Each structure stands twice: as structure tokens, then as C-alpha cells.
């Protein structure tokens, strides 16, 4: 077991969210053994996974990577990127790889790179499903073969093993596809002999960088020091502090149960975790444990395309129209249904009413209008963009001139901020797979390609 602390520079909450140069330089001055960033999240919804595009901007990702790669090459230390391209499927990984290669070309940088894939072939999942190796993550519904057939893209969240393997094979830069968030930080530390529980818990906090500090920020660096039986966290901007409260609070973030955090191959158990204040700006954590699972499982995420979306944005300032809004939307739905009852396509039509329950939908405890204006989004989804256009435009024009009870204003019911009033929102995806897949070998689903750059 190494005696020295393993030092990790986490640059930003999501690759492409940026960081101040002063913080990065303060991190490099602490001589890190690893520079890493998590690049992904499923939070932005199913579109990005299904469509194969990143939710972060290429220019911003290139800026962050350029700084990280140049410093890593200069100091001979590794860079690990987790969930490249935001969703970590092949299209996303290729996008990130291309940016890395472009930076290397332009800056005349040379290094060994490993690209680890995380897209899972449908046939692999189908075979596992038939073999009883796929279970839903409650409250997701069970996976059906029909759902699988319609799924366009599936990724698996890799654990530390494929990244450790890539580093063992000599990679200095690792561009990993979909990975469990802590992995890009924890893998190199575990490879150096540090405890999996502490490395994973540290990774959980570093993956959001300075979000765990006060004041928090999604675009600033965080530094982690991992010891034999503890880790320490230090924000790199002098304006921020890591307090026991801010670090403990972050442990809750986006998790169902803060005491038991399941991941690939086992769970992080925080029931014995201690949070202590070491200095005004440094928090110290100990007692976190990794409990291996009986069977190694990989979390799968998949998306299915359900059609195309067109939206129209409008508002009303008329109190009678607002009072009658349910009758209006009901009447518009009926007119649309009647008008297109012979059409050979299906559609869904939604009205989002801002000022009543537009934000919370069915969870809204007070779905009443008590303001003087109402925002309205008309949304149509159908099998083609043209069909979605048809439904949206027809609903919009019907609503504009709908003759509701008590109407005084007969020239038009809606205020449109824009011309054109309707917008293409493009392809629509839904999450279709959110399941655990049991595996024998943690690396088998995640093949790596090695290249000399």
C-alpha cells in the first residue's frame, strides 16, 4: 500500500462547463497524479442518447480538453474522461475522440490513447434478456423484446475495471464511453493500491467538482487527496470552501438513499462515514466502505424514437379566456381529432399551461390560475415532422379563433411572441431501457482501442 496521498485534479462538473485558469494552475501546483473529468449525465433527458449528439458545446469541450491535455503531456500524468460526449455511446465517444485528435494535431502533442466503447449491441441484451440476466431498476417497467426492437441505442455504465485495464496497457489518455460517474477518478487511484470505498466516494464528489464547495459552482476545479483510510477535499479557488456540511450535502445530491449507493460490482456503504473539518477550506472524510455485490451488474440505458415534435408558444391576458381554458383546450382537442379522424397517422397533443400547472403537472398541489396572464405551449408529436406540423398548426389556429363561453375579444385568443409561431423540435426519444445486466467479466462489454497519437 502506497504511503503517499494519491492526488486528483477534477477540472469541472461536466467537461465543457469550463474552469478558471487560476484554479487549474493551483491544481497543477499541487502535483496531481491524475487529471480527470466526468463528461456525462442522463439528466438532460433521452434525446441526446438517442440522437447521438452531445448536450455540451464542441468549442467549450475543446477549450477544457486542450488545457487538460497540454498540462498532462508536459507533466507525464494521465487524463481520464468518463462518459465522453455526454451519453457515452459510439457517436459521442467518436465526437470526443475527434476533438482530442484535433487538439493533439494543432498542439503537436504526443501520447498513448485508449478509447473504451460502452455501446451494447442489442443482440447481447436480447440474449441476456432471454437468459434471465436483465432486471428492471425499480420503478422502471420490465424490458420487453418489443421495446428492445424499437430501441435505437443502448449503453452500459462501465465500472473501474476497463479503465484500470487501459491504464495497465500503457494509455496516458483514456476516453471512456458511458461510465459510472466516480470511475474516471477512482480507477487510477485503485490501480495505485488505494481502497475502493474511499476512492469511489471521493470520485462521487469529484465528479461534480466545485458543486460540493460553498459557494458552489459547476465551472470550477476541485482537488482530492486520497490517503490509506481517509480522503480530503480542497476547492482551488480561494473564494470557495469545502465544509463538512457542503460535502455531506453533496453526498445526498441526485441519490435515492445516501447511505447505500449502488454501482457496478457493488455498493458504496456510507453508514459509518465521518465528515470532519480539517482546515477552514478543507474537509476530511473517512469510514466509507465498498461492499461487493454477489453478482456483478452493469446498468443499461437505452433510448427509443417515438416520432417528431412541433411546438407553438403563445400567451393570453384575457380573464374570460383564462377562466374557460379547460373548455378551450378540450374543444380544440375535439376539433383536431374530428378533423383528422380519417388520417393514417397517430399523434399526441399536449397543452402546457404556465401560470397554472405548467411546471409540476400532476404533482401541482394548487392547479389554479391566480395571475393575470397565462403562458401556453402547444406540443404535437407524430410519426413524421410534417404530421407533427399539421397537428400543431391546426391546434394553434383552432385555439386562436375558438369561440368560448362569454368571449368578448373576437379578433384572436392568443398572443404569439414570434413569427413563425411554430417550431420544429425535431426527433423525440424516450428512455426505453433502464435495467441491470448481470455479467461474468466486468471488461467484456467495454472493448478498448489503443492508439499512438
Amino acid at each position: 500500500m502506497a504511503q503517499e496521498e494519491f492526488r486528483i485534479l477534477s477540472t469541472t462538473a461536466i467537461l465543457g462547463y469550463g474552469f478558471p485558469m487560476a484554479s487549474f494552475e493551483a491544481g497543477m501546483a499541487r502535483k496531481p497524479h491524475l487529471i480527470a473529468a466526468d463528461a456525462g449525465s442522463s439528466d438532460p433527458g433521452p434525446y441526446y442518447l438517442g440522437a447521438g449528439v452531445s448536450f455540451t458545446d464542441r468549442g467549450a469541450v475543446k477549450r477544457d480538453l486542450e488545457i487538460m491535455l497540454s498540462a498532462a503531456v508536459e507533466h507525464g500524468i494521465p487524463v481520464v474522461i468518463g462518459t465522453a460526449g455526454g451519453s457515452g455511446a459510439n457517436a459521442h465517444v467518436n465526437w470526443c475522440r475527434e476533438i482530442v485528435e484535433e487538439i493533439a494535431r494543432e498542439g503537436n502533442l504526443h501520447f498513448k490513447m485508449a478509447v473504451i466503447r460502452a455501446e451494447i449491441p442489442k443482440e447481447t441484451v436480447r440474449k441476456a434478456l432471454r437468459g434471465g440476466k436483465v432486471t428492471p431498476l425499480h420503478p422502471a417497467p420490465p424490458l420487453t423484446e418489443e421495446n428492445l426492437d424499437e430501441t435505437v441505442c443502448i449503453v452500459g455504465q462501465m465500472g473501474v475495471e476497463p479503465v484500470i485495464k487501459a491504464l495497465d496497457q500503457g494509455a496516458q489518455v483514456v476516453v471512456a464511453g458511458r461510465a459510472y460517474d466516480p470511475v474516471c477518478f477512482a480507477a487510477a487511484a485503485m490501480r495505485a493500491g488505494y481502497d475502493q470505498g474511499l476512492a469511489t466516494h471521493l470520485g462521487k464528489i469529484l465528479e461534480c467538482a466545485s458543486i460540493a464547495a460553498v459557494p458552489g459552482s459547476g465551472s470550477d476545479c476541485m482537488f482530492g487527496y486520497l490517503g490509506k483510510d481517509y480522503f480530503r477535499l480542497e476547492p482551488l479557488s480561494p473564494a470557495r470552501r469545502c465544509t463538512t456540511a457542503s460535502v455531506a450535502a453533496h453526498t445526498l445530491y441526485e441519490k435515492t438513499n445516501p447511505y447505500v449507493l449502488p454501482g457496478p460490482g457493488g455498493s458504496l456503504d456510507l453508514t459509518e462515514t465521518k465528515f470532519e473539518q480539517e482546515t477552514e477550506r478543507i474537509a476530511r472524510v473517512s469510514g466509507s466502505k465498498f461492499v461487493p455485490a454477489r453478482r456483478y451488474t452493469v446498468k443499461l440505458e437505452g433510448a427509443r424514437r417515438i416520432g417528431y415534435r412541433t411546438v407553438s408558444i403563445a400567451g393570453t391576458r384575457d380573464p374570460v379566456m383564462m377562466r374557460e381554458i379547460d373548455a378551450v383546450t378540450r374543444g380544440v382537442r375535439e376539433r383536431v381529432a374530428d378533423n383528422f379522424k380519417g388520417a393514417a397517422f397517430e399523434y399526441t397533443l399536449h397543452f402546457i399551461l404556465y401560470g397554472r400547472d405548467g411546471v409540476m403537472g400532476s404533482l401541482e398541489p394548487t392547479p389554479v390560475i391566480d395571475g393575470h396572464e397565462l403562458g401556453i405551449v402547444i406540443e404535437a408529436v407524430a410519426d413524421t415532422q410534417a404530421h407533427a406540423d399539421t397537428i400543431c398548426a391546426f391546434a394553434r389556429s383552432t385555439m386562436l379563433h375558438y369561440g368560448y363561453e362569454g368571449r368578448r375579444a373576437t379578433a384572436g385568443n392568443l398572443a404569439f411572441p414570434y413569427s413563425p409561431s411554430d417550431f420544429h423540435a425535431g426527433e423525440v426519444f424516450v428512455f426505453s431501457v433502464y435495467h441491470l445486466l448481470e455479467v461474468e467479466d466486468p471488461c467484456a462489454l467495454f472493448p478498448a482501442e489503443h492508439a499512438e497519437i
Partner: protein
Amino acid sequence: MNVNLKDIAGIIRSKNSGPYELTLDILFSTREWYERVRDAKAIHEGVVCALYKIPPEKIINIVHFEPADAIKITIARPLCSGDPGETDVYGAQQHAPLLNLAIEC
């Protein structure tokens, strides 16, 4: 004593915990408030069901987390994130009903 949650909790927030769950965090301003609310058992299934108009089976758990002086509530999302009819893809704006929750403790 009767207080509103927002007067004794420094952080009240909501967020997805995966695409099928919504998690609500209440971080109390002091250990004392955390303990008073915990000991009064003021935040329980019935309160959450009434606030969000959901049946008890939609509640996944309610956890007390002392290191952060926090109570965490996780419920099933009404829809999987991004499904047709979605209103809040990230789940980041579902906390407001908690702000004025009256607590007797």
C-alpha cells in the same frame, strides 16, 4: 411551535435520481432544527402524499441523514423523464410545495 419549513431549512431542492425517480432534499439550518423535526416525526408519508397528491405506493423512501442535517424524500416520477407530457426533464423545480409546509415541533 409552528414554523414554515423554509424558515428552518437552508436548502430545499428537487432533482431526478435517475429517469424514474424524483428526490427532494431538505437540509436544516442547524442540528437543533434537524433533531426537532426528526423527533416530532413531522415529515412522514402522509404529509408527502398530501403535498404532492400521490398515493403512498409512489413514495420510494424517506431517509434521515444526520451528517448533512437532512431529510430526503424520494418518490416515483409521474412520468419517466422526457416521456410525452413531461414538464420538468431535470426534475429541478418540484420542491416548491415544501417551502411553506407548516411544521409543528
